Each structure stands twice: as structure tokens, then as C-alpha cells.
């Protein structure tokens, strides 16, 4: 097993960078294997692929993708799509609390629930990645565990469990990784207040106040305002 | 000390010997720490080392000792306090017991044992008891692991050390260290006596094995698993602070010095110069100035040997415990046994 230094080799020559054809193949494969379980897909050409699967096929998706070559586990996490009721902490605490939207708008590949699982698998041979999402209903925040498919999912699911309060059926050991065992609340949920920020707005926030007019005039000539959709900068 | 002993009363002699013993133990320890640990190591690592205390940092040692002496003497709550406090004393004691038999000149020795080397090897292992006791009494898992490792290691390396010495004893025909010195300085290599017969030449294998075993006895890298600071924090010394730690520290370097003394007696001709150079034929004819010159010669040889010990210590990573045991039992002991056999055959043949 021990190989002298001179004999080490590259095992695989570099493969051409992936095109969108490969990504469409992945969608086709998932559609044929999961059927109705594949809810939605989103493909940004030359960039990345998102798929959303049903909760019932969450583990099956991992198995299918693993046998299709996506055998490198990247991460598991979750997203809480509820807009933060506390904003970004830039409000003056002495003012009355502003009205905030509570409308939940999901991102790529859509969604119906407040919580969504987010995972990513990579194919190290074809140099391709896929982002997998899965709706988790708020009344029953449990999905199947991936530990049986990817042993490395263990820690990621523990982290997701303590940060979002999402349960993982079949996980051997859902202890907290970071927080004390008797900690209450799930820190990465949007309705968990960032207390330090609530008590005293972060002073750094002044940076984004509009610039003095004279200064803005100098710089606005060479700016491309098309980037921000609502164009409210100076 | 015949010439002196007549004029000095018994208590004076005893006082002289105690002072001599302190000097013989502490002076090498201090010199090794300053020259090698502070300065040589720093130069090897492209830095200067201590520079502030005294010219060129030479008083750093005093500052360090002062610092350690001021610190509180802490014993862990669950430790076996009496034994815990005794352990560093045992370790340091074994160093003093060792230096007793080392001859520094024709008359400059503490005691003239006819089985000196046997005694030295025997009391050399007393420090194991101290280390084991320190590891056990600290009530700390790292200390315990360190103490156990030290015990296993020191016992394993005691054997090759003894076996390496057997070659010297066969060649010298005596276990008395003074006789071994004389035998080397009056000896001849195949009829040529220009250098005497320092056994480092004829017993080279024994010398190498002895030095490796010394390295292991002293728990210096690459054999420093008992203190392995990156895994066991500090091994058996973890819980010690203040002057008890200082005693371990002095013990470590003083023992290095004393073992280097013994190695130079066994292999480098000890305090002597080849007797042929001055026309001496036996110990009685050696002139009295060797009682002053001898210790200086010994000191020089000790510095050369400790330089080697420290050089290895600063450059090598450490073995794993099982690799160390394998090295002792599968390499060193068979080689030293073969060395004894060859020495015995040659001794009979010539």
C-alpha cells in the first residue's frame, strides 16, 4: 500500500467542465426514478441546478443521486423563509416597531412551507453539483435522515436540528453540537431574536445611510444604476 | 583525597564532599540548560534566545530559578499529597546517588566502589520509582499515562544499557570506574598506545547503544513519550508547579550531565589523558595536578556528549510507545548481546 514518492500519480485526467446537458440528464434521471416525488426543478444555464423533492422521497433522492455518481457529500442545512419579524436591527429602539411583511416567499424551485431542507451533493468525476430542497411542514418538522446513505450527514443533521429544530427520523444521536443541552429555542429560525442587536442597533449600520449630496454627485456619474432593481440609491 | 584527607577533619571532608556533589550535579545542569537549551536550540531555530537578563542572557537561568521558587506549591485536591510531594525528591536524589561513584581525578572522587558501574546502573533506575510515583499520585489521567509510559520505557532501555556496559567491563576486566579509566589510558590498540585505548573505538557498538539508551533513560526526544507535551500535556509533570517542577527540571538536566559523565568514563577515557604521554605507568604515579585537570577534562567530555544528546533532542520527532519498545527489544538488545559475544571472543583471543 505504501507507494514511494516518485510513484504518486494523478488518478484521473481533468474532465471538461460540465455543460448543461449533464444537468438535464440529472433532472431526467430523478424524474424517472422519483416520479411524482420530484416536485420542481430550477436550472440556471452554465451555473447550477436546483431540484425540489417531496418529503417522502428525501432519503430516496440521496440514494438515487449517490448511485448516479453524486457520491461526494457537501452539506445539509435548512432555510427558514419567514421574513424576520425583527428586521435587520437597524431600527431605532425608541421608535414604534415598523410594520413588516410576513409573506413567505420561497426561492428557486419554489416551495410551500416555511422551512425547507437544503442539501448539496457533488459528483467528483463529472465535476457537477446539485442543490436539493425539500419542504418540511411546520406542524411536523421531521424528515428522514441521510446518515444511512452518507455517513457524513451525521454532524450536519445534528447542526440543523439544533439550529432549526428540524427532526431527523433514523438519526442515531441528535445531540446538540454547539449549544448547551438545555438551551431553548432554535437560533437560526427567523423568529429567534438576535438579542445583542435588538438591545442596541449595531453602529456600523450608519454606513448605508445616503451619502451627502455633494459627494454623491461626484460618484454617480460613473455608476451603473441598472444593478439595483428599485434604483433608490443616490 | 589522600593528600588532603590527612589535614582536614572528618566533618570538613564531609562538607567538602557535599559541596563537591552539589557542584558536580548543579554545574552541569546549569551549563546544559543555558548553553544548549537556551542558546543552541535558539540558534538552530533561527532566533536569539534570552538576551535581556545579564550580558547575552547569561543570568536568565537565575531569573528562571527565582521565578520558580516564588511560585505557589500547589498539590491537586485529590492527589496523594505526601507521595506527590516526595516524587521530585526521589528523582533528584537518584541523580546525587549516581554522581557518587564518578571519578573526576586520581584522588578526586566521592567514593571508590569496587563494583561502581553495577551500583551506578542500579541507582540509575531509582528515578523510575520517582516518575511512576509522580504519575500515580497526581490523580491526573495524563500523568498516569505518562508515568506508565516512563516506567515501561525506562525498564526496556535499562537492559540494552546494562548489556552495552558489559562489553566495557569485559574489556577492562573490572567494574570499578577508576580501574576502567586507568585501563583505557594505559591500554593499547593492537600494540599502539599513542591514544591509550578509549573504548569508544574498540567498543563503538556498545557506545552507540549506550548513548541511545541514555537518550531513552533521560526521556529526551525522540524518546520523550512520558512527557510528550503535544499529547500528554506534560506527562507525569503535568500537575507540578513551583519548586517541585524545578526539581524535576533540574533532575532532567542534571541526570543528562551525570549520564554523560558516566559515558565519558566508560567510553572516552574519563578524567585521564593517555598515561604514556607523561610517562606514568599506574594510578599511583599520576601527578596531583590531574585532580584539578581531571574535572576540567571530564567537564569538556560531558559537554561534548550532552551536545549530541541535545542535538538529537532538538531535531527529531518522537516515536510511538510500541515502536520504541520494538526498537529496544528487537534491535538494541540483540545487537548488544552480539556485541558481548564478539567482545568476549576477542578478549580471549588477544
Amino acid at each position, binding site marked *: *500500500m*505504501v*507507494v514511494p514518492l516518485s510513484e*504518486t*500519480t*494523478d*488518478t484521473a485526467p*481533468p474532465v471538461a467542465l460540465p455543460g448543461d446537458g449533464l444537468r438535464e440528464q440529472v433532472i431526467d434521471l430523478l424524474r424517472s426514478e422519483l416520479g411524482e416525488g420530484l416536485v420542481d426543478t430550477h436550472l440556471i444555464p452554465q*451555473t*447550477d441546478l436546483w431540484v425540489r423533492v417531496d418529503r417522502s422521497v428525501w432519503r430516496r433522492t440521496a440514494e438515487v443521486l449517490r448511485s448516479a455518481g453524486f*457520491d*461526494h457529500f457537501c*452539506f445539509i442545512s435548512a*432555510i*427558514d423563509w419567514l421574513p424576520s419579524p425583527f428586521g*435587520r*436591527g437597524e431600527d431605532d429602539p425608541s421608535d414604534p416597531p415598523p410594520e413588516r411583511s410576513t409573506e413567505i416567499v420561497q*426561492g428557486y424551485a419554489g416551495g410551500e412551507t416555511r422551512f425547507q431542507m*437544503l442539501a*448539496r451533493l457533488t459528483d*467528483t468525476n463529472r*465535476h457537477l453539483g446539485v*442543490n436539493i430542497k425539500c419542504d418540511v411542514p411546520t406542524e411536523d418538522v421531521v424528515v428522514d435522515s441521510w446518515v444511512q446513505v*452518507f*455517513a*457524513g450527514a451525521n*454532524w*450536519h443533521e445534528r447542526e440543523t436540528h439544533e*439550529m432549526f429544530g428540524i427532526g431527523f427520523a433514523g438519526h442515531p444521536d441528535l445531540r446538540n*453540537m454547539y*449549544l448547551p443541552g438545555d438551551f431553548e429555542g432554535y437560533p*437560526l429560525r*427567523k423568529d429567534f431574536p*438576535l438579542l445583542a442587536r435588538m438591545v442596541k442597533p449595531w453602529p456600523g*449600520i450608519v*454606513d448605508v445611510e445616503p451619502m451627502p449630496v455633494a459627494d454623491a454627485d461626484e460618484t454617480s456619474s*460613473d*455608476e*451603473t444604476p441598472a*444593478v*439595483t*432593481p*428599485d434604483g433608490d*440609491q*443616490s | 583525597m589522600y593528600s588532603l584527607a590527612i589535614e582536614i577533619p572528618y566533618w570538613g571532608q564531609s562538607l567538602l564532599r557535599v559541596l563537591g556533589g552539589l557542584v558536580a550535579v548543579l554545574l552541569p545542569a546549569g551549563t546544559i540548560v543555558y548553553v544548549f537549551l537556551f542558546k543552541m*536550540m535558539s540558534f538552530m*531555530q*533561527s532566533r536569539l534566545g534570552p538576551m535581556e537578563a545579564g550580558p547575552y542572557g547569561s543570568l536568565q537561568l537565575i531569573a528562571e530559578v527565582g521565578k520558580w521558587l516564588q511560585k505557589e506549591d500547589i498539590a491537586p485536591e485529590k492527589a496523594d499529597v505526601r507521595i506527590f510531594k516526595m516524587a521530585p525528591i526521589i528523582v533528584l536524589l537518584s541523580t546525587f546517588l549516581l554522581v557518587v561513584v564518578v571519578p573526576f581525578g586520581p584522588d578526586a572522587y566521592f567514593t571508590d566502589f569496587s563494583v561502581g558501574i553495577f551500583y551506578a546502573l542500579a541507582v540509575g533506575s531509582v528515578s523510575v520509582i520517582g516518575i511512576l510515583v509522580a504519575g500515580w499520585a497526581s490523580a491526573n489521567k*495524563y500523568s498516569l499515562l505518562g508515568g506508565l509510559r516512563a516506567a515501561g520505557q525506562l525498564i526496556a532501555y535499562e537492559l540494552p544499557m546494562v548489556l552495552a556496559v558489559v562489553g566495557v567491563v569485559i574489556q577492562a576486566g573490572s567494574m570499578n570506574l577508576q580501574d576502567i579509566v586507568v585501563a583505557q589510558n594505559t591500554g593499547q590498540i593492537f600494540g599502539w598506545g599513542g591514544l591509550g585505548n578509549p573504548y569508544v573505538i574498540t567498543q563503538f557498538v556498545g557506545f552507540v547503544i549506550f548513548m541511545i539508551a541514555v537518550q531513552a533513560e533521560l526521556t529526551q*526526544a*525522540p524518546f*520523550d*513519550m512520558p512527557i*510528550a507535551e*503535544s*499529547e500528554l500535556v506534560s506527562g507525569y509533570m503535568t500537575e507540578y508547579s513551583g519548586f517541585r517542577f524545578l526539581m524535576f527540571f533540574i533532575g532532567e538536566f542534571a541526570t543528562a550531565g551525570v549520564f554523560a559523565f558516566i559515558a565519558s568514563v566508560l567510553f572516552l577515557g574519563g578524567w585521564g589523558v593517555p598515561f604514556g604521554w607523561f610517562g606514568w605507568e599506574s594510578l599511583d604515579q599520576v601527578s596531583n595536578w590531574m585532580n584539578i585537570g581531571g574535572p576540567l577534562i571530564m567537564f569538556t567530555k560531558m559537554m561534548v556528549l550532552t551536545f549530541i544528546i541535545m542535538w538529537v533532542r532538538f531535531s527529531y*520527532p518522537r516515536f*510511538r*510507545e*510500541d515502536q520504541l519498545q520494538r526498537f529496544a527489544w528487537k534491535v538494541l538488545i540483540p545487537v548488544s548481546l552480539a556485541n558481548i559475544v564478539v567482545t568476549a571472543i576477542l578478549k580471549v583471543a588477544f
Partner: protein
Amino acid sequence: MTVLSDRQQLSYIAAQAADARLNVELETEGMTLNIGPQHPATHGTLRIIARLDGEQVVWAEPGCGYMHRGYEKLTEVRTFPQVTSLINRIDWLGSFANEVPFILAAEQLMEIEAPPRAQWIRTILFELSRIANVSLFLGDLGVQMGAITPVFLAFRDREYVLNLIEGATGGRFHPNFDRIGGLKEDLPAGWVAETRQVMRKMRQFCDEIEDLLFGNEIFQSRMRGIGVIPADVARQYGLTGANLRASGVDWDLRRDQSLPMAWDKVDFKVWTHPDGDSFARCWVRLQETREATKIVEQLLDTMPAGPVMAKVPRIIKVPEGEAWVSTENPLGEMGYYVVSKGDLGPFRVKIRSASFNNISVVPWVLKGVYVPDIITILASLYFILGDIDR
């Protein structure tokens, strides 16, 4: 769940059998050793709880979280440009490299691209952080095994690289130099020539370390065949970077994906090693440091002129969308999943740090090893606490 390699399985079974025999005679009892959170080998505050039988590990479990700073939550209350000052504290030894993927993700959402010169300088600084980071790893290797000299050489030579980073960015550890659309400043005068000199020095340093450590028999006997992670296990646990390549998986994000960075403009070799043991991991890192110096030199030769900042609005609002960008950081794949709602700041940022995955393999790989091997395996997996806990 765990797939043991044959060697580990056999040694484990043998050890179990020997224990069973001993237990009948001696009634031995295991011991739980708590390594850390304050321990010289844990570079910070990782804690390893190991159940020992003698000196053999029966099971071991890392406990992290002593340094969790909640960056994922904090990013939600920052604006996009402010986030970089947080995230370059994730892997604090290669901090510039942490900023790059986040900035690239924001640029991808805004559909802008940094000008070529900025891309070049970004890549150079990225590789410099890699050199600074990995050279410390190479020195630290010796310390973990009791050889105290290499770490001083590493600190000495890393200083040159840090000086370069400081010269260009003004910060030694936390440059905070990357901006959406480019860089804060252009390079100072004389920097290029100095960099060339330092790259030569760093290659000498690599040779020195190779002589001092990698060629040493004791080092090899401590590293070879220890802590073997087969390729399949490495992929399952999501190991990345040198840890994955040392298991024979040829996967390097610098080469294997197209990003608006300059890596595709240079010629470099991605080293892999078939063994998957501790030695392989260290060796691959050593080779990577050498490659990084060559990448920097090639980039210095071909650096284009021009501005270092694209035209971006003064107040940056990132359009609605999601982006995943990851780069090959010194420790492995570092990626940011950025969700934007068209606001001043991100809606959610998932930080995928390399060490978190790399260390999650520890319970698997530590089974059946000896206590001293815990240290070498941890050292060879190379983690940075901030990168585990974020």
C-alpha cells in the same frame, strides 16, 4: 454505518480478542480520556473524548462548539459589504481566501464580474493565503510529534508571506480587502518583485521541511499507514482539499469549475496520493504549497493592466436569487450558499466550511488507534477551530 478498512478491522478484532482474554484474567477497565478543550494539540478549543483501553482508543468523539460565533445568524443583520469582515475570521490563517467565495457569490447574483486585473490579484492573494496557511501546518506537524525546530522555521518564513499580504492589503490576518466588483486598492509599487523573491524563499522552505521532516524515518513510521481514510469514506464524509486528494480522489475546485478567477490561465498540477494515510495528507499539502508558489509566479508574469474595480453602485443591493459558490481554500472546499431577497443584506447565508466536514470523519478514523496517533491524525487532517465552529 461505518466502513472499516481491512487493516483497521483486523487490528480492531485482534485487539478485542486480546482484551477479552485479558479481561477474563485481569478484569481490566477502560478509561475515558478527555483531550481538550484546553490542550496543546487542539490548536484552540476542540475537545476529544476518547474511551481508552490501555493506550488504544475504543471510541472517540470530538466535541466542538467552544468557539461558535453564530456567523450564519450575524450575516442576516449585516449588509453585503460588511459580511467580509465577519467571514475572514472563519479560517483565520487563510483569511483572504474566505472572502473570495462570498464576494463571488454576490457578484454572481448581481451579474457583474471583477475586471481582469482584480481577478488576477485576487487569485494571487488567495494563493498567498494558502501558502501562509499551509506553511504553518507544515511547521506544526513537527511540534505535534515532538520535533520543535520546524515550527520556528515555519513561523520565520510565513512572516515573509504575511508581510506581502500586509503590503498589499494593510492587514496581516484579516485583510478585508475584497469588494463586490473588485478590490479596494491596486498593488503597491515594488510588490511584484518582492513577491517573486519570497516565492523562491518559500520553495526553499518546502525543501527544508521535506528534508527535516518528510525524510525522517521516525516521522514516516509515525505517519505511514496511520489513519487511513479510503476514497469512498472520504467522499461519504465530504472531505475536501488535501484530505480528499490524499485518498486518491482527483478533485480540485480551482481546476474543476469555472469561476471568474485566474486559475484557468495558469498551468499547475493537482497532486493526489493513493495511500490515504496521514503521510499522504501531509505530503499532498507540501506539494500544494510548491504549486501555489508556481501559480503566483505565473500570475505575476501575466498580470494584465487596468482598473481593479468594476462599476458598482455606491449602495449595493443584491437582486433576488440564490447562489452557491465554493472555492478550493487552504483547508478544503469553502462554500457560501447565499440567499438574497433584493435587500441590502443577505437573507440567509449557509457557510459550508471545510474543517467541519474534515473533522466529522474523526470518530470513524480514530477507532482502534493509539493515543499518540490521535495527535498525528488530527494534525494531518488539519483543522482550524474557527472553520469548524464558524
